[in-house]
């Protein structure tokens, strides 16, 4: 792996996002002889699921992939946030406040997913995190020894995060999954088709014996109590409160599709449309992993491989992984569908847009995303709607607004660099 600096790079294949999909794409393309550039905002590769400080922390499969990446000829660009890209084969990233241009022949978008947050009273208090959020912070060095943690929300992420926190010395108060038990158990039973996953699930459950993984329960509100928190939980009938130090709540994952939308790829229902070779609707652009549909790390690796091979001009063999990924995604959706009561999670004065402190009551029913933005400023902040847009889509059925450059905040100098790229370079 070659770390690079410099204002303009030329690649056969540019890969955006260094999670499992991006790593697989980059490695396979490079092993086929393509010049590959891999970019990510984070200082180390791994994305969210393989976030680490030292490779020793990782499960063997992940460590092997990172090792393979290290030994490859992939040019690795850490701390590089892609802010603009054009279908005529360029992209601009910002790194250390400075613009970085990559000219590519093929682009693999592997930008992963973000958590879906549904606002509830108290969700903006310090020490209230997302589920993936607290996991990411844990992996980045947060010390949770002796801390009480309430985990809530929905999805298969809750278990592994609880297990990781427990292994790190946290006291798990409860893991509250909103989906009803019968649906969760049917999903877990369905994992028998994939013994590897079942083994993992068993390991998670054993990992925190004293903790309770409870279904049909959700976090209704969090209140501050000095340096601690009061967490109010409910099953729709009973309401009770638990004291805690930390709270982590997240309601599943949302594909990150700002970049594909910007560059003109077909995106339906918030997912990038791809064929069996992971080709998007734009020639030369591929997409792999969560942006095509939430289907987990195994699907991401398989799709990344196909995208990397195709991007390097090598036709992938056999049937593509899309079918299996879509089936898994459908099972996930069925099992963890969000219950109706969650629409009432926020109070009228609960903040929905955290960047601009816009409360739910300020947003009239029936407003479009654009009208909401212009009338209340919701969505006008630096997160560019990444937190509030999925919430408003869930709460109000609001479709996202159009995407325009920059897709992440960028300095004036970097944005200016986007229009200075000579066209037609190879």
């Amino acid at each position: 792996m070659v770390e690079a600096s410099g204002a303009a790079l030329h690649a056969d294949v540019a890969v955006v996002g260094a999670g499992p999909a991006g790593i697989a794409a980059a490695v396979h393309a490079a092993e086929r002889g393509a010049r590959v550039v891999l970019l990510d905002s984070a200082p180390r590769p791994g994305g969210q699921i393989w976030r680490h400080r030292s490779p020793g922390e990782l499960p063997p499969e992940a460590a092997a992939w990172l090792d393979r990446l290290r030994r490859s000829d992939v040019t690795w660009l850490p701390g590089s946030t892609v802010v603009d890209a054009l279908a005529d084969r360029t992209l601009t990233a910002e790194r250390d406040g400075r613009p970085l241009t990559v000219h590519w022949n093929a682009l693999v978008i592997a930008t992963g997913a973000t958590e879906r947050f549904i606002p509830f009273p108290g969700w903006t208090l310090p020490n209230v995190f997302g589920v993936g959020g607290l996991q990411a912070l844990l992996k980045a060095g947060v010390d949770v020894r002796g801390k009480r943690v309430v985990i809530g929300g929905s999805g298969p992420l809750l278990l592994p995060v609880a297990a990781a926190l427990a292994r790190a010395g946290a006291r798990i108060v409860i893991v509250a999954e909103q989906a009803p038990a019968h649906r969760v158990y049917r999903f877990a039973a369905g994992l028998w088709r994939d013994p590897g996953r079942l083994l993992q699930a068993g390991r998670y459950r054993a990992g925190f014996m004293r903790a309770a993984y409870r279904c049909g329960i959700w976090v209704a509100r969090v209140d501050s109590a000095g340096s601690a928190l009061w967490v109010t939980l409910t099953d729709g009938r009973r309401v009770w409160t638990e004291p805690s130090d930390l709270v982590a709540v997240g309601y599943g994952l949302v594909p990150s599709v700002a970049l594909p939308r910007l560059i003109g790829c077909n995106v339906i229902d918030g997912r990038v449309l791809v064929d069996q070779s992971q080709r998007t609707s734009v020639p030369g652009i591929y997409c792999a992993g969560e942006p095509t549909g939430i289907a987990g790390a195994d699907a991401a690796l398989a799709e990344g491989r196909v995208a990397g091979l195709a991007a390097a001009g090598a036709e992938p063999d056999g049937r593509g992984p899309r079918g299996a990924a879509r089936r898994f995604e459908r099972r996930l959706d069925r099992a963890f569908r969000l219950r109706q009561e969650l629409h009432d999670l926020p109070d009228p004065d609960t903040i929905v847009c955290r960047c601009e402190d816009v409360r739910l009551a300020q947003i009239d029913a029936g407003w479009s995303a654009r009208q909401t933005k212009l009338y209340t400023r919701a969505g006008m902040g630096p997160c560019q709607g990444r937190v509030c847009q999925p919430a408003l889509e869930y709460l109000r059925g609001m479709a996202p607004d159009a995407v325009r450059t920059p897709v992440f905040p960028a300095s004036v100098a970097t944005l200016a660099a986007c229009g200075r790229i000579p066209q037609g370079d190879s």
Partner: protein
Amino acid sequence: MADTIEIVVNGVPLRVAPDESLAAALFNAGVRSTRRSAGAEARGPLCGMGTCFECRVTVDGIAQRRACLEPVRDGMTVDTNG
């Protein structure tokens, strides 16, 4: 390799582990609020992955740096602006 390095947060020196993120370092030092919102509420990190922008702090004089993406560096100065 040193066990800890020193960073300066709001003028106060802190010893932190050399391989953790700035957001983690702040959390471990008991600094739970990274910024004040538009409505002056205390806020801390939410997403841990650089998309929510709640963890923005000023690092070495440069504003709007996401602490969750920022590795700590020896001698780094940090202002949480509330």
